[in-house]
């Protein structure tokens, strides 16, 4: 393993570690649930991303082969992180907020967690 490869891999590991740490720190520091939701969805993405890049570089430069697993982990992470955040946000809103706590939708019906969809748009696929 050449020195340059070592430096590159360690650089991305350290970057990943720092962002992972900051993301976890955000969970402690921020006050409301909605604020805390920001820190795992972002800071941790780059934290995991840094470790994945380091892993890809390691297998490429040392093992001499291209590894696709890291790309897949990235793909799955990007698919699941927003959905999880969305679920947590909705659960929080249903349990703790009233419709008056939120701004108006600006168009006819209210937010989907309180109001049903208007009749005309229910099933246009059948």
């Amino acid at each position, binding site marked *: 393993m050449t020195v340059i490869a070592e430096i590159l891999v360690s650089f991305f590991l350290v970057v990943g570690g720092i962002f992972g740490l900051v993301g976890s720190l955000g969970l402690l520091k921020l006050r409301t649930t909605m604020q805390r939701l*920001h820190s795992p969805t972002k800071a941790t993405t780059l934290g995991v991303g840094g470790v994945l890049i380091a892993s890809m570089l390691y297998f490429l430069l040392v093992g001499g082969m291209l590894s696709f697993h890291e790309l897949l982990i990235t793909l799955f992470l990007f698919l699941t992180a927003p959905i999880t*955040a969305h679920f947590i946000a909705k659960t929080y809103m249903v349990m703790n907020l009233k419709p008056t706590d939120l701004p108006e939708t600006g*168009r006819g019906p209210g937010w989907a967690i309180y109001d049903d969809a208007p009749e005309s748009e229910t099933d246009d696929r059948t």
Partner: protein
Amino acid sequence: MIARLVPHPILSATLTLVWLGLVNKVTLGNLLLGSVLGLAIPMLTAAYWPNRPKLRKPLVAVRYIGMVLWDIVIANVEVAMIILFKKRDEVHSQWIVVPLDLTSPEAITWLAGTITLTPGTVSATLSADASSILVHCLHTDDPGGVRDTIKARYEAPLKEIFP
């Protein structure tokens, strides 16, 4: 007939590629097995996916993904700065309502996912008729600006991608 056998060509291709990535080795056998999975899974689940979304401009989609990846890196740094250097009371979080021009469910899903992954914003819920999206912003003093950025930077390309 072909539409019946291959209801979602892009999904089939994606599944095959994901399979090849999972086994981490490209051989003829793996390619065949991947293709079988890529063909069988969409066929079996076609009943749950009645829509056939069409990508109108794949190149715009590729550029969009690249732009979002870059924005995610920026988002991480910005959120990290807010977490590290702002006092608790200085974080001005607020709700932002973004009216939507997009109509297809796939496009709205993309937009909501993008909003959650990028600078200091999380998409929380849609209005009941899916005409606006509620976004929670971690720190901003200019809600109108954030709304306009989302509309110009993310919604405009999505309008081109999904007809």
